[in-house]
Every structure is written in structure tokens, then in C-alpha cells.
């Protein structure tokens, strides 16, 4: 009689355990299947939200109406093609926005983030199209000198020829070009050297060009073809012969 009672209680406990363990195992099984899916859904949702915000910005952008909008475009507009299209409208911004933003963009040329430097420079390029930019020319040159002290931005491919064509021999700019020329990691180092030589003929860039070839700088093959402009022809030919078949 007492045994029956214990058996029944034991069975009751077993049933509870079976239910709890069964539930737990079932749950673990589902979680294993659902886990990766949930992670993927969360990632996709975030990606979609970012894209929706970009699309909305693209759809509603109708020029730079405020300082905040300029900052927002610098920080949030992607891809680069869309940013470029919107940046082209900066020279048409209202006076209030234009004159408030240009000094801030010049300051941004010294920003630690290379993308911000690049975007500020692109906006300033467009701003220069406007006659309203004249009063900022001197500050712009100081800003460019600071820009040249930082690691290169993509915009250097247009900035460097512009400095050369305009004949800007400001000491700060020349120091910046020298700093770029001496950076082994900088793909624009040879171009900075050529521009430096063009702006200040007293600077001999040949040793640095030779050094970059020896160090197999990323542009060393292109440098080989430019050597005759910066050293005697015989020496340039000798270096060309020495390195042309190098792999």
C-alpha cells in the first residue's frame, strides 16, 4: 500500500522530468536550426534599413538647404557616385549655407578620417566654381598644405596636377609635397615628387626616385619611364636596363 503510493509518486516525478527534458531538448534542437536564420535576418534588416535611408536621402535631396544637410551628405551619402552627383550642387547653395560651410570644409581638410578629407576637398572643388569662393582662396591654400601632410586621398590625382599647373610654390605646400614624396607606403609619392620638382627646380628628386625603385614602391615601374626627366640620360638608361626585366 505504502509501496504503491511511492511508485505513483515516483512515476509522477518521472513524468515531470520527461516533460522538462523533452521540452529542453526540443528547444535546443529548434534553436540550433533557427539561430543562423535569426542572425541572417537581423543582418539583412540592418542592411535594408541603411539602404532605405540612403535611397530616401537620394530621393529627397534637392540641394544643400542647411549646414546640417552638408554634414549629413558627407557622413551618410553612399555610394561615391551619388555623393559626387550631390556634391556638384554645392556651388549653388544659398549664401548662408555656402559661407558657413566653406571655412568648416577647409578645416575638415585636416581631419583624421581620410574619407572626410576627400569629401571636404570634393565639395571645395565644386565651391571654387562659384565667384563667392574668392575670399577663401588663401585659407584654401593653407588647408591644402595641411591636407598634403596627411596620407593621400584619391583626390590627389587631380589636386597634384592642379598645384603644378597653377604654379603654387607656397612653402607649406612644398613641405607637404616633400612629406608625401618621402612616404614609402603612399602610391602618390612619385607624383608628389614630380610636382615638387616642377614647383621648386632647386629640389633634386632623382635620389628619392632611385630609392623608390630599389624599394619596389608600388609605382616603381612607372618611375623607370620618368627617370630621364630628372637625371642624366645615361644613368636613367642604366637603371632602366637594370630593372626592366625585374619581376
Amino acid at each position: 500500500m505504502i509501496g504503491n503510493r511511492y511508485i505513483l509518486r515516483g512515476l509522477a516525478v518521472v513524468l515531470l522530468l520527461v516533460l522538462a527534458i523533452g521540452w529542453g531538448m526540443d528547444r535546443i534542437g529548434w534553436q540550433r536550426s533557427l539561430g543562423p536564420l535569426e542572425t541572417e535576418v537581423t543582418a539583412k534588416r540592418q542592411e535594408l534599413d541603411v539602404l532605405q535611408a540612403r535611397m530616401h536621402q537620394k530621393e529627397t535631396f534637392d540641394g544643400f538647404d542647411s549646414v546640417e544637410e552638408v554634414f549629413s551628405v558627407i557622413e551618410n551619402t553612399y555610394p561615391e557616385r551619388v555623393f559626387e552627383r550631390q556634391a556638384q550642387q554645392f556651388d549653388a547653395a544659398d549664401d548662408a549655407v555656402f559661407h558657413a560651410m566653406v571655412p568648416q570644409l577647409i578645416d575638415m581638410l585636416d581631419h583624421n578620417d581620410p574619407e572626410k578629407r576627400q569629401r571636404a576637398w570634393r565639395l571645395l572643388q565644386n565651391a571654387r566654381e562659384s565667384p563667392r569662393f574668392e575670399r577663401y582662396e588663401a585659407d584654401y591654400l593653407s588647408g591644402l598644405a595641411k591636407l598634403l601632410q596627411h596620407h593621400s586621398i584619391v583626390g590627389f590625382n587631380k589636386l597634384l596636377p592642379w598645384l603644378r599647373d597653377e604654379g603654387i610654390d607656397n612653402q607649406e605646400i612644398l613641405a607637404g609635397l616633400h612629406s608625401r614624396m618621402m612616404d614609402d607606403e603612399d602610391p602618390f609619392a612619385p607624383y608628389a615628387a614630380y610636382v615638387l620638382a616642377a614647383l621648386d627646380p632647386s629640389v633634386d628628386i632623382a635620389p628619392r626616385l632611385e630609392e623608390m625603385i630599389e624599394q619596389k614602391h608600388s609605382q616603381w615601374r612607372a618611375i623607370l619611364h620618368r627617370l630621364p626627366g630628372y637625371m642624366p640620360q645615361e644613368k636613367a638608361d642604366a637603371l632602366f636596363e637594370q630593372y626592366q626585366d625585374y619581376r
Partner: protein
Amino acid sequence: MSEADQRSGRWKFQFGLGWAAYWVLVCGLVLGWYRDHMQAANDLSRLPTEIVVMNQQIAVLTRQIEGLSQGTIYSRMSQRVRPEHLAPNANYKVHSLESADQLRQSLERIRKDTRPLPFNHSEVFFRLHLFQLYKSPEEVFQPAVPLVIGYLEAPEAMVRRESTRLLHGLVLHRRIHMQQHIPVLTDALTRRLSDPDDRVRIEAAQVLESIGVEAGSAAARLNEIAADDDDEVAVFAALAIDAIDPQYHAVPRLQELVETRAANWEFAAEWLPEIMLPSDAEQYLETQLMQTKIPEEGYFFARILSQLKRRQMFPDEKEAP
């Protein structure tokens, strides 16, 4: 346990409070497990679908942002006339109209211009002259409206189209002054529902929709058109009946047009989010996206869906100019 049971040596189960609590606990566990199981099973079937839908939207948005091709199914939203498109914009200087006869003479002069395009700008001139009616005084307006209604029977499709368009604008922007012309206008527009030019028919159906319940006499013809799967105007006819007949709902017919890929189903799909609850529209478009086997259609539904979600994310901001 009773004394008799104890004497007989048999143990008898007694259902007390403890057992009741036990069984409640067991039932709770079983129900909890079942609920958890069903939820997980539901998630397992829902999440892959959600991922497919999001992948389509990501692909669409990426292409849209990059400014790449929007696919081969183009938007037909331009067929829908919006009130703000009908009235002259703020830059247009409306000349004062002295009489209905002056308007008639100007319009007749434009009609006589038979030069070929691109030298012929009669459509634009016709529209600009008609714009004068938007701000003309009552004594000029009233005799001029029957003149324009008469142009609905003109042999040139351009004249019929521009007149229908102007009358639509007047119904929306000068409704009180148009009131006395509604019966004649409704009859004239009903005839235009059989116009050889589909654009005139689409415009006419939309004017009848804007007139609303007072255009009841057009309902029979609109019903015929709405029921025809091969008629481009069916979707606009359904929308017009919806406005005329309170018993009729356009949503099921528009959904039918989309599901059977009937004529102008693209516009029906794009317009559904405008007349359905956003959550219902979202669900409907997701289902269509999942059901279609044609990639271009999937891309098209994803485009509408992402547009709808964007409107929900940024409800109060202006749309692209």
C-alpha cells in the same frame, strides 16, 4: 485513507490538493512545450521567406541607389492623375479671360495649326489657354464650361484629352462652380469611356471617380469595363466605381487583376498600397513576390514593397521632386 481500506490492505488513490497542483503543472508544461514548438516551427517556415524577400529588396535598392536599370517592368504611376498636377503651377501667369467667346476663338485658332511635330505645339498651347478657366470670373466661367464639354466630342484626340484633363481639374479645384454642369459632364464622360484613345478613356474614368456618387449614371458602363481583363482601363474603372458606389470595393478586383496579370496589372500592383492598410499591402506584395517564377516580376514587386516600407520609415518627409 479510510479504515476499511486500511483493514483490507488495499491502497486507494485519493485526489487531493497536491495532485491537483501536480496535474496543473503537467498541463502547463505540455501546453508550454506545444506553444514553443509551434512558434519555432512557424519561425522556421517564415524566416527563409523573409530572407528571400529582403534579398530582393536589397538587390532593388542597391540598383536604384547606383542609378542602374530598374528592370523591364516600368512604373505606370504616371497614368494616375493627381490633383496637384492638374492646376497651373505658381510660375504660370494666368491671363484674364474676358468672355467664353474669346476662349473659343483662341482654341479654334490652335486647332487649325496642322504643322507636323516638332513645329506644332498645339497641345501645350491648348492646355495653357484652358488654364485660364481656373481663375476666370463666374460670368465667364459658366458659359465657357459647356464649350469645353462640347470639345469632348472633337475629332482630334489631343483636344478631347486636354478638355477631359481641364474638366478634371475644374471638378477638383472649382467644384462648387461646376455643380450645375455635373449631369451633362457625366453623360459626356460616359461616352468618352468608349473613346478610341485609351489615354482619353483613362482620364475620363478618373474624372468620374473625382465626381463620385453624383456620377451614378456612369456606373453600368464602368462595371462593364472593370470586368474586362483585357481592358487597360479596367483598373481605373474599378477605382471609379469604388468612389461612385459605396457597396463596391476596388481592392479585390485590383488584386484579381494583379494575380491574373491582366491588362495594366502593373498599375494595379503599384496602386494597391495606396488603398490598402500598409500591413495588408505588405503581406500581399510579399506573397506575390514569393509566388512569381519570373525574376522581373519579383524585382517589380520588391520595388513596390521597398517603396511602401520607405514611406512607413519616413512618413512625414517630402517625396522626390
